[in-house]
């Protein structure tokens, strides 16, 4: 527990807690906090591409058709250059030195005016190279969104309404709620600048205990705070290079979050730092001493002996990674009962557990299990798997997580390319751009974090929720499309729950 010493610093609580002391201490802490306050912000900045994605459209212009068209224009409007020189494209696709004879498709936004206006000699086609990116879960749509977010660091805004399917599987089948009148604050344009996105990592007792003299006895909270409800996970597959680790390291330091890395890599590359989480598999009594700056060390799977060894040899918090495979519930409870501070749950990269269930359902079960056992606040839940879009972040938190671990988005934020399926962590094959520099990569990841945080604020703002901690496990702030359909379409001939015939 933190308490003011009266000298502008904080220290562990000691002595009798009287009402007067409590009042004086509280006032001091309040003053200190106010003096130290600065509004958290992620400094985003647009960066150039180093390996741009394939452009969205191909533009094909029939040269003969174009030549004929120009001739007829000259014939009809010879003395009116404004008329002859006018072009259908306001985005400059036909504004190169030789106009439509050498279009610039990378500028095309697909308004289709050219092809509608000149269907006889202009064609605009979706670019198959773009459509081929990703796999069936992490689609080209996710990848282009991440690419844009990482380039600009802004919330993607577009005209016209939603273009996709109605509801859908996985996270697409979950909607977030809003309030018609409740706001987090009436002060700002949307009040969103006052919404908190910090989360606590660690453990706190379900209640405090005092002895008859008013001294705190027993456990006190043991946690630290990060400024965003997401961390970076161990880069999957073959992505875990030193270069990437360095970029994750500097990005985490900049935005105040964490990056999980294999402990051997942390050692080999000299990356021990407060925001690096070494993940160890078979610790020795000396292992923890190799990471004196770590605030959290994770064990890569539950093993009581290894856990106790680690626990007894470090002041850092100790977390346990658990895959959603057979018996995960029992394993999780064992870890929690043995005082693991953090549980890091992993579905596969398509968001599926071993039994095929989607990660949102699995997370809800984990969250509810901990509530039923009366120990939810004693542990921090971090989760990963299937999080490839900004909307997945609040949805995973609603499902019960304290913080989300990001894996594949890192690859696509850095304009990397994947090869083959992206379902299993070990199976991921990817390449990062050769021209990537550390500064560029750090800014791209920072932009992604800024954009996802801002989008989280949009969701929280619409709900009227003032801090993300309050979103955890708030299933009532989500709506499940199949449940809404059951309510709306019940009794309609042919409708059965889930929409299946």
């Amino acid at each position, binding site marked *: 527990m933190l308490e003011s010493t009266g000298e502008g610093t904080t220290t562990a609580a000691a002595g009798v807690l009287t009402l007067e002391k409590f009042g004086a201490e509280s006032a001091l802490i309040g003053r200190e906090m106010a003096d130290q306050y600065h509004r958290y912000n992620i400094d985003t900045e647009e960066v150039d591409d180093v390996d741009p994605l394939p452009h969205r*459209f191909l533009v094909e212009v029939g040269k003969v058709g174009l030549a004929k068209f120009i001739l007829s224009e000259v014939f009809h*409007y010879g003395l*009116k250059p*404004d*008329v002859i020189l*006018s072009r259908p*494209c*306001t985005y400059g696709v036909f504004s190169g030195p030789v106009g439509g004879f050498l279009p610039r498709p990378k*500028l095309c*936004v697909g*308004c*289709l*005016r050219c*092809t*509608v*206006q000149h*269907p006889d000699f202009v064609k*605009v086609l*979706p670019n198959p190279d773009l459509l081929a990116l990703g796999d069936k879960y992490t689609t080209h749509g996710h990848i282009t969104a991440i690419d844009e977010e990482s380039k600009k660091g802004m919330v*993607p*805004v*577009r*005209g*016209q*309404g*939603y*273009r*996709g*399917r*109605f509801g859908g599987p996985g996270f697409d089948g979950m*909607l*977030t*709620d*809003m*309030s018609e*009148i409740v706001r987090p604050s*009436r002060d700002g*344009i*949307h009040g969103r600048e006052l919404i908190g996105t910090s989360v606590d990592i660690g453990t706190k007792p379900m209640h405090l205990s005092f002895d008859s003299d008013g001294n705190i006895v027993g456990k006190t909270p043991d946690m630290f705070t990060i400024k965003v409800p997401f961390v970076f996970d161990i880069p999957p597959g073959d992505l875990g290079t030193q270069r990437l680790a360095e970029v994750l390291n500097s990005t985490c330091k900049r935005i105040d979050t964490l990056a999980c890395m294999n402990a051997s890599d942390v050692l080999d590359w000299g990356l021990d730092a407060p925001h690096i989480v070494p993940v160890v598999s078979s610790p020795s009594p000396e292992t923890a001493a190799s990471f004196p700056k770590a605030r959290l060390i994770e064990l890569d799977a539950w093993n009581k002996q290894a856990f106790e060894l680690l626990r007894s040899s470090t002041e850092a918090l100790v977390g346990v990674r658990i895959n959603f495979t057979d018996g995960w519930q029992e394993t999780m409870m064992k870890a929690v009962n043995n005082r693991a501070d953090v549980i890091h749950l992993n579905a596969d990269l398509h968001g599926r557990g071993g039994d095929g269930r989607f990660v949102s359902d699995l997370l809800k079960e984990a969250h509810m299990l901990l509530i039923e056992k009366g120990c939810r606040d004693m542990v921090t839940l971090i989760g990963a798997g299937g999080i490839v879009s900004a*909307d997945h972040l609040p949805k995973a938190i609603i499902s019960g997580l304290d913080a989300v671990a990001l894996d594949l988005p890192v690859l696509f934020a850095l304009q990397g390319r994947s090869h083959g399926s992206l379902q299993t962590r070990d199976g991921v094959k990817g390449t990062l751009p050769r021209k990537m520099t550390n500064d560029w990569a750090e800014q791209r990841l920072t932009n992604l974090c800024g954009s996802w945080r801002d*989008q989280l604020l*949009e*969701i929280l*703002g*619409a709900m009227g929720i003032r801090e993300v901690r309050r979103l955890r496990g708030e299933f*009532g702030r989500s*709506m499940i*499309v199949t449940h809404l*359909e059951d*309510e*709306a*379409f019940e009794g*309609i*001939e*042919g*409708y*059965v729950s889930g*929409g*299946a*015939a």
Partner: protein
Amino acid sequence: MMTIVKPSQTLIEKTTGLMQDGMNAVAFGEYGIPEALGDARWTDELILSTWYMAETGKIPDGLNYKTGKSDGGFDRLDFKFLPESEWLRHSEEIGTTLDLNRRGDAKRKLTCDIPWYGGGMSYGSVSVNVMMSRARNSARWNSFMSTGEGGYPAPLMECKENVITQVATGYFGVEEETIQAAPIVEFKYAQGAKPGLGGHLLAAKAGEEVAKLRGSVPFVSLFSPFPFHSTYSVEDHSKHLDWIETVNPTAILSVKVSTPHDVDMVAVGSFYAGAHIIHLDGSYGGTGAAPEIAKKNIAMPIELAIPKVHKFLQAEGVRDRVTLIASGGVRTADDIAKAIALGADGCVLGTTDLVGLGCTRCSNCEGGPSGRGCPWGLTTTDVELQEWVQPDWAEERLHNLYSAMQYRIRDILRKLGLSDVSELRGRTDLLSYIGKEAGE
């Protein structure tokens, strides 16, 4: 930087001629369907059939003009038509009138000849040309069109009996005269495409004229905050409506809200506050600009909100004293009829009008990389681009489109054995759900 000037008459004629001929050629099947056209909600065939109807006033053959491919909602609902031998004869006697004041109070007894009217698209998000064509078309159908939140351009006064004045959270362009001129005043609490987030007109689109009408500075981004900063409760909301009643005692009052999980409670509260029209705007609706995350994820699609509200109003015993209007993802005559069968009285259209005038759903309305807005001249006030939509042509297009849609509404009604659209309300027994095939 290139200076953009109002185009010469010759250029307008050439460009609009090419655009219109091209739209017709593609819609009539003279060329293949453009491969990059359409999305799951507005498929290529829905867009082309809308163009076809807007040109001819008729239902097309060989194009799916009824549904999209969104795999849910309206796209998985169908009608349980009677056997052909029991169909009514197609007739203009089949009623399509929408009653807008069911409270039985002393205010105007307004009706529309068709069970839909035009949704708010503000000056700034669209041009005066687009607004005028929509307003004149509304007048021809004894229907209405909302100003959106951008003020009331003076030319609209010509159609004032058919123009709804919108009061939204930024109060942009709200004037006593325009409230007094309005047969209907619409309070916009939220918009389906960006519920809970307010509005945002990007600086590039807030030019001299737009800023003047909104009482702001040119080329400065304009935010409509969320929500009304004076509303915490139904009682506060009621005061809003009282205020309008004081300024214009005969106007009927519409309350536009989006679709949170408690939309049913919101609707009942609006009724008790004095609303004549409860307008639900679902999450898949159109917008000039909105965060992508909001469009897809916040609040519920309109198909799921209508039955919830309809049943709740029934249970509360007030269903017949209020008009329930649905919007946000309502695209076609078939969607309108399905919305009514789910429990709405009628619908509001926005995107459908734009598609009728050439919109390809490219999503660059907010300005796009050019910063100039819609290349089709729809969602822009750019001095050149806005000329690509000439009001007379556009009015005629919309009239044709509405004629075809009214025809289709009557066609649906007669095949269900109904002689008036009001008989369809809440008749979910006349709908069927198209289940998914195994493996779909």
